């Protein structure tokens, strides 16, 4: 008997290989004392190589590992977004108590592991790689949320995310099992074929319940209402660099597989699930925007805003057209820029004011620190969808795709949601520029309430009055804000980026 090993396309696998090698290097470097402190450099290097491989494979359109993965435009673009967000998280975490307490190398290893999961997820075209990627993404993230060992909120958010995330994974797995039962296949294309070949399988209750459960599982990951409740809590509790990573990278990867699974595997029954996803999108838009109105914590507010934004993006899947996917990817790219700018400023303010992410900690920022105030203001205006920012074009793009496919009511929901959202985004801008500049007092830290110090955890460098002059914090904020404006004025490059993702699906959707 001759055993034929599948041919391995090393070029196509190069991003995954590079990232895995980087992960190994980071873990190994942790035990070698002299180079231990270069962890961030090592991580950034690994991400740069990964990004390089992705760009090298820009025009790739290949099935890998016997059809379990597929490197195409969609995978490349969304992986790039995830890699960029991870690099930002590394920068933002420099000097962060979470990183120092958990141990720098361990923290970076967790982050890299999660990123590896994302890159796999973005390429997944089989239920197995889908689930493996999702878990590889999630499990390190649960731990990362709890890495600020001396803060009760951080530990709590880690635990909460773990419990809720497990429910989500379990639901997803259950749904996948049912779809496997209905179609008899695990590959996405094979599922589509299987569903069409089976007698009456397209509207069988087994299939449809499976679809519902998969939708729920993915909705957990991208925080779509009514599966969103964990989002504000976890966003608020987790260390901010982790929150930033979670907010943008997770969404990029999860939406990649969301698109692929629904448009490819479940494409034949698009008219069964589109109403449901539209309803979920509309609900998210309402819940996210209304919920954000009353928040006083900036991170919580960004959590609710993330729910609303996820609702907008989900609308791109509803249309089941290439224009919808284009719009989604465009919005996602803009979303990365806007959120990176916002979270970078939150990190700066937190360090200066002793872990206060209250909106009042921004008072008078415009006068005293314009370099910090501008990125935040731009981020808020962009999230609110005001022209000339990338958020404005992104929403137009989505609305156009929706109206074109006769989802006018959902487009109107986006418009209404956008208008509501102005209230809380502009409140932040108003606090920054129109409040008197009295220095906020550092939030008092009740040392007695702190959990016992865990062995190995170091003392917190809570205060860093010069955080607004650290290049590794300022640079992400300023570059991201500049990008949000640049692509708002000259959106064409980003439109092509998004088209590249959409074209990858041209075989399956119109």
């Amino acid at each position, binding site marked *: 008997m001759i055993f034929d090993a599948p041919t391995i396309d090393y070029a196509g696998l190069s991003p995954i290989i590079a990232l895995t090698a980087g992960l190994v290097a980071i873990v190994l470097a942790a035990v070698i004392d002299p180079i231990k402190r270069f962890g961030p450099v090592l991580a950034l290097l690994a991400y740069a190589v990964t990004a390089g491989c992705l760009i090298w494979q820009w025009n790739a359109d290949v099935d890998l590992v016997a059809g379990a993965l597929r490197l195409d435009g969609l995978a490349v673009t969304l992986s790039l977004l995830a890699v960029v967000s991870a690099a930002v998280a590394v920068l933002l975490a420099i000097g962060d108590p979470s990183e120092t307490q958990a141990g720098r190398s361990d923290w970076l290893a967790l982050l890299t592991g999660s990123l590896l999961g994302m890159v796999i997820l973005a390429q997944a075209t089989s239920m197995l790689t889908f689930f493996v990627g999702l878990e590889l993404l999630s499990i390190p993230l649960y731990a990362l949320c709890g890495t600020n060992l001396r803060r009760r909120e951080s530990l709590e958010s880690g635990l909460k995310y773990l419990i809720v995330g497990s429910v989500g994974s379990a639901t997803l797995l259950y749904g996948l099992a049912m779809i496997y039962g209905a179609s008899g296949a695990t590959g996405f294309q094979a599922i589509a074929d299987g569903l069409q070949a089976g007698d009456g399988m397209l509207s069988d209750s087994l299939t449809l319940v499976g679809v519902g459960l998969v*939708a729920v599982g993915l909705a957990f990951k991208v925080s779509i209402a*009514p599966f969103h409740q964990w989002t504000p809590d976890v966003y608020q509790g987790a260390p901010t660099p982790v929150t930033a990573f979670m907010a943008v990278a997770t969404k990029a990867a999860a939406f990649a597989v969301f698109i692929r699974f629904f448009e490819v595997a479940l494409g034949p029954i698009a008219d069964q699930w589109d109403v449901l996803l539209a309803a979920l999108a509309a609900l998210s838009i309402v819940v996210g925007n209304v919920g954000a109105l009353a928040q006083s914590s900036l991170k919580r507010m960004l959590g609710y805003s993330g729910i609303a934004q996820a609702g907008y993006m989900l609308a791109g899947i509803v249309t089941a057209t290439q224009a919808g996917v284009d719009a989604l990817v465009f919005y996602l790219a803009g979303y990365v820029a806007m959120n990176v700018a916002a979270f970078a400023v939150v990190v700066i303010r937190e360090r200066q004011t002793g872990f206060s992410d209250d909106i009042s900690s921004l008072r008078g920022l415009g006068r005293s620190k314009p370099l910090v105030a501008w990125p935040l203001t731009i981020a808020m205006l962009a999230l609110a969808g005001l022209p000339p920012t990338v958020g*404005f074009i992104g929403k137009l793009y989505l609305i156009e795709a929706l109206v074109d496919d006769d989802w006018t009511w959902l487009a109107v929901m986006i418009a209404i949601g956008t*208008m509501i959202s102005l209230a809380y985004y502009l409140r932040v801008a108003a606090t920054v520029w129109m409040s008197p500049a009295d220095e906020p007092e550092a939030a008092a830290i009740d040392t007695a309430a702190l959990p016992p110090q865990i062995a190995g955890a170091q003392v917190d460098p809570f205060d860093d009055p010069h955080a607004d002059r650290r290049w590794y914090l300022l640079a992400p904020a300023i570059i991201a804000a500049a990008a949000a404006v640049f692509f708002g004025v000259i959106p064409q490059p980003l439109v092509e980026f998004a088209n590249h993702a959409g074209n990858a699906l041209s075989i399956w959707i119109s």
Partner: protein
Amino acid sequence: MTATWAWLVLLFPLLGSMTIGLTFRVLPERTAGLVGIAAIVAAFVCGILALIGLQGEPHESRHVASSLWEYASVGGFTIDLGIYVDPLSIFMVLVVTGVSSLIHIYSYSYMKSDQGYHRFFSYLNFFVFSMLVLVLAGNFIMLIVGWALVGFASYALISYWYRRNTATKAGMKAFVINVVGDIGLYIAAILIFKNLGSVDYTAVFEKAPEVFSVNEWEIVAICLCLLVGAFAKSAQMPFHTWLADAMEGPTPVSSLIHAATMVTAGVYLIARCFPLFELAPTAADIAAWVGLATLLIAGTIAIAVTDLKRIIAYSTMSQIGYMFVAVGIGGYSAGMFHLMTHAFFKALLFMAAGSIISAMANMQDIDKMKGFRKAMPFTAAMLIIGALALSGFPGTSGWFSKDEIIDFAHFRGGMYDWMWIGMLIGAFMTAIYSFRIIFRILPGPACKEAEYLEQHGHVIHGEPKNPATGQLEDTEVGYPGEEHHIAEQAGGMKFAMGVLGVLALIGGLVQIPGVSEVITHFLEPTFEDSIYAGMHPSVSQAWTGLAEGALISIAGIATAWLLYIKRPDLPARFRSRFSAVYTLCVNKWYGDQVIDFLIVNPVKAFGRFCNGVFERGVINGATAGVAGITRSAGAAVRDMQSGLLRGYAVLMLFGILAIVVYFLIRSI
């Protein structure tokens, strides 16, 4: 060439705003003011050059669409960063930049002692830029952009003195109501794109008659959505409540945004979209009737309230009501003409009011003002000119413009005759409240502030108090500075008011029926495809109308004289005799309460419900039973500080259940 000048019109205010905003640390205060003025004057000059370029074109090609670059091209949808230059937009550009230049010059002196001088001029320039984007926009997307930006600028300027609670609240209110209007506009644009496949003005207006038949429900819906935007921005019923509160902003802001420019955007919108409104006559009629209702109700309120700036604000609402009637019934050039003259005399009235309020050490109650005739002769003269023009006294600008609208309604006849009668009553009230201001403030024995000014030659020094609540406020950010300035002693104020005074007096001469009619001819290329293009009253009809207007205006002034000079006891007796009517008017017809009841409270309640009941209550309740079991599950979970995990689990379960049930039902 015309298009280039039009682009420069946009560029200068933007540059001005950015320059002042970015250099507030290095630029001396006065220089910042001068930069601001220079930017707007430059825009005005470019506007005139664009006008000359446009007039050089042959009659039928007097419109230029210009695109700087393709802003975004997605799918079948391209958005140009485009402007549309035609007589209508140039007309608006000239009104906006012209009046803005004067108001900038006024502010240069008026805000002299304010600590936020840079901020003020930066905002003011930014506002002018946004307003110009709005009027020059070449497609509905650019229009929305401008629309949203002016809303934001207005919010920033109303809340300019941000230490004042009342000011920040008023800013929020204006913003919220304007956002409701923005939603209307947004939906209108979506529907337009859905039905016509484009958002470009030229394409939309060309295609609309082919796609829609007259009064088809879809075009009516589009126009009604546009009207929601127009009503909110122009403070027409039922979205009128924000304008009176917006008087919390500095007086130049009231003059610029809330009298001369921004609030007329709704009128411009209807005039601009006339091809759509003529396909939906029902919507156009609604616009006219709402305008009529607003002009009458706002008129009664203006007679009752005693706050000087708020009287003028209600008068603004009322005058914009006239413009809405005009553009609603097809009298486009009449409406635009009144928009122009109103910008002159209303800006003037606000400036004069600002001067008086300065002399009163920031008090705004006209019951406390008296005898300013001698102390402030220049301001008094300007106030009288403004009031004359507002009440449509023969020969003034307001006489020509207002009576052209009234006459046009009569000319249309039928049900529009009711509007004609309503507007005549409105004109009578206008004359009464305009001269109520004059007769209360100017004649009689001088009040202590006026006396002090006469004797000492400078303004009395008052405690810095919030005129609305009487609270003390700090002079850094909550007050127009330590020192007040009046027109008699400040060159900038005097110059701006003088120019506007002349314009308010003689501005109407450009449009004398049968003689000059400059505005009508100038706007003709824009409106020549209108179904009302050839329709206008004959010269003799027009003059009959003017004569009626003159009579009513004089009768109104005489009545005011009777009420406030001859028999000052009469108003009090009216008040006690018809206390119900008085209470209704002085409480602004309970508009605030109605809006609170209809919009604000439900939204608040919904927010509370989501926050309190839904997130905590329902979940708490639903999980109370489960709690006991779970309590032993883990100590760490028990004292979660933020949010209730158990509750989340239950809610998620419900969500999953709902989705599964949905699919199960579908599969049957």
